């Protein structure tokens, strides 16, 4: 079973983790967060302390995410009370227990890619063709351009890909 890192721990590393934030989602190798109500709050509130890779690594119910957010607030996260609900709804929808773990786009098989929620068969073939041509994708932006998708459309269906 793939292990996931603790959000609480990363929040503890307010300083070091936040220092490594060149991209809006907190990491060069991470895809953009999927669109939806609550995304902006996640990116605003959570990035104050840590990068977003630990969100991509976690899978929790809304209650689980609420517990995590409460813990972070205790540690000093700048989250207003009325923001907890939209944040946790967003996180549980996109990073809930039933959402599969992220896979490496550069090594994933056709079958693995087909299991990604929302990704159509022709897109999988598009990825495989682009990968064969490019060798390896260094970033989500490379793949997005190769597939010719707009940013939100890409973020919606391809946020569970890693680019290691």
């Amino acid at each position, binding site marked *: 079973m793939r292990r996931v890192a*603790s959000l609480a721990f990363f929040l503890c590393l307010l300083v070091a983790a936040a220092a*490594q934030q060149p991209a809006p989602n907190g990491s060069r190798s991470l895809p953009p967060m999927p669109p939806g109500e609550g995304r902006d709050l996640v990116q605003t509130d959570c*990035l104050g302390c840590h990068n977003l890779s630990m969100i991509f690594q976690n899978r929790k119910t809304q209650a689980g995410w609420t517990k995590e957010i409460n813990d972070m607030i205790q540690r000093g996260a700048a989250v*207003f009370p009325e923001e907890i609900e939209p944040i946790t709804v967003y996180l549980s929808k996109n990073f809930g227990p039933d959402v599969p773990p992220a896979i490496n786009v550069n090594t994933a098989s056709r079958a693995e890619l087909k299991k990604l929620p929302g990704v159509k068969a022709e897109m999988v073939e598009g990825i495989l063709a682009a990968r064969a041509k490019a060798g390896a994708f260094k970033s989500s932006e490379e793949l997005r351009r190769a597939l010719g998708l707009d940013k939100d459309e890409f973020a919606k269906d391809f946020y569970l890909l890693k680019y290691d």
Partner: protein
Amino acid sequence: MRELVRSYLRNEVTRRGFINGMVQSGFSLMAADSILASLPRASAQGQSSEETNPFTRQFRGTGGELLAEQLRDAGVEYVFIGNGTGVSPLCDALVDRPDLKPVLAVHEPLCVAMADGYSRASEKPAFTMFSRVAVPAASSNMYNAMKDRSRLVVASDHIESLASGRDSHEDYDDTLEPVKQFSKWRWNVDSPGRIPEWTMKAFKLAATPPGGPTFLTFPRDMLVAHDVEAEIFRAGTFDVPMTVRADAAVIEKMARAVIEAKSLLMLAGTDVWRFDAVAQVVELAELLAIPTTSGEEREGFRVSCNFPTNHPLFLGGYSPHMRYPRNVDLVLNMGGKLPDPGTGSPRIARSVKIIDVRIEASDIGTDYPLYMGVAADVKEVAQDLVAAIKSMVTPERLKEIRGNRLEATRQFVARLEQGRLQAMKADWDKVPLTWERLTSGVNQVLERDAYIVTEFGTEGPKALKCFTFAPGEKTLVGRTSGAALGWGVGAATGVKIAQPDKQVVCLQGDGGFLFNGQPMAMWTMARYQIPVITVIYNNRSYNETRERAFAEEGRQAQTNKDMLSYLGDPDVNFVQMAAAFNVPGEQVTAPDQIEPAMKRAVRAIEEGKPYLIDALVGRTGHGADLAWYPKLSIAEMRKRKV
């Protein structure tokens, strides 16, 4: 003549005074000298002063006595000592000097931690001495002290000069090398007559800002040397107050930048505490309604509290992505290290003007490009800056600059605090206890101006946010920025010695408690009736370490095997541990037990007894539920049951 001899023996006249008196009574100089030589030396009673010199006084005695005399003039009241034969010449001198009180610790890292805590709470330099073979063990807390620039003079004995360098009993080649990085200055005393001089120098360098531990080694023949005459440097002759002011032109440039800034943020660092400059920095913040954080200390307050945590302009810790204030164009850093730039993009954007004010000039401008670097005393700078700003703009303009910043900051902080309280209540009745529930209960019982000494890991902010740290409120003596574990309880012991009339409570994680022989600090507490409440936050884990390790997603995380951090089995019973030192205590496992236990603890310290509470708190984060560790039984491996 009889009266003169009596006066001499009572140390009421000096040697010179005695001879002059004898000559005036009709004795020849030679006869007076001969009689003087037949009398017991005044040094045996511990004094031979030249009262005419306001800067030094003569003293004749053993090396240990010379050291003790110079400690007196350095203002030392407590000598934190660890056992060792080489320390005994100093102890011999203490026998007749009850004003120098020995405090024995039974493990040398505790000597350093106690001296450190004492120094922080008394705002005076502290002295500790122990055996040479304990220097390596003590060095972890010397490292902590160096990180925080604590004002300590640390000393050890060493093998006799004529025997050193032969790898003989308890000898090692370079007595100074082990502490080279952890001391501001170090010296091997090789002349007994210069013991006071080097001791004086050690105190001067340790106490002069930026301070830091200094280190002396005394080969045994230095301290046991007899009949050594030397000058003792009188109190006040080696103080170097660092009231360093910035040039008027520099202040004017700073004032102009602050006035013209569109979005200003102030960082209040540990120099504010060191220079007793809280009032001045608060006045500066209020003058322009400057939102303020504690810059380098990620919880907003860690080593010390440099800005009142209940002030409406206080935001807590610094973040490179602060929600408020936005679009910061000027960071005014008052007295702390600037936020660690990290490994990625810098934590303060390169486009932001930075004014860095610190006494430690060597650090200024090393990590960030600066608009201005100012090597000065933050207290003086804050005062001068306030005066300059007032002279440069009208009250109406000041009001305009302040705008609604105070109210906006107040509202921002209030909304966050509302969220914090709401989040805290979510697990209010949980068992095992949450850190914040336990700390809230502790806070309910403590006096308003208690001293809080902490040694926490990454859970610390949750606890510390339950207190108000401010003048007239609680005082924080927080975990060192060095963060080497094994400091807290020893430090709390020293804090209580420095502040006997204040409640002192040590909040200590269980992992850290087991480092550096910290439980044995309770031996010192018990022996000297040092009434400190120690609360162990016991999650039977090095929680932080496990989280770090598992975040790497390596084999431990993949296999759910905690090779390093689980501390259960045996589940340490800290109450029994305290009992071994005759320190009463109790275990707390549920929320409704916290306040009754704390009330019993307060009654105990009122009676002069230390008290320990072993509170079971929950683990958090990845792998929190794991109780797995690599099993090993030597007993089962045996071929013979011996």
